[in-house]
């Protein structure tokens, strides 16, 4: 099971399934390979943004800054399984 962070923001992940659980950070535009979670049932992944100085108990946003936006530009926030 590979977790891919294709955002400009570092992400924190939690994963559990198959009787085990793990957590960690994924830098922006990087991935983490968790082979132990291959071929398991009911694997749940939670992903949240890691932003310094976020107050405890609050979640931080994934964010992007566009230097110059065009007409009809789209900004997509997605969570995909493949």
């Amino acid at each position, binding site marked *: 099971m590979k977790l891919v962070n294709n955002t400009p923001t570092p992400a924190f992940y939690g994963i559990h399934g198959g009787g085990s659980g793990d957590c960690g950070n994924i830098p922006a535009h990087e991935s983490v390979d968790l082979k132990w979670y291959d071929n398991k049932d009911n694997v749940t992944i939670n992903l949240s943004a890691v932003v310094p100085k976020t107050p405890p108990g609050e979640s931080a*946003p994934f964010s992007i800054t566009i230097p110059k936006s065009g007409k009809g530009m789209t900004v997509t926030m997605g969570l995909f399984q493949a």
Partner: protein
Amino acid sequence: MILVNETRQQVDYWITADGGSPNCGSIDAEGIADLPQYDHQTNVYVGFKPSLPKQSFTITCAHTGTGEQVEIALIAAGGK
């Protein structure tokens, strides 16, 4: 500027640009927010996070295969 939510859960968004007024709102799962006032703007900041009470983006895979991949993405594309 169109904000697209492909996360399977509701998200809150914030958007600002140089010289403009900030905007915020929620987008339902698989929904969009059409904000043409942010076309042709400079330094457009867009932030997304899960709508409360959710604190994270979540997905459950009924069965994972070898080399299965879960990707979280935030991508800007298109526009002229």
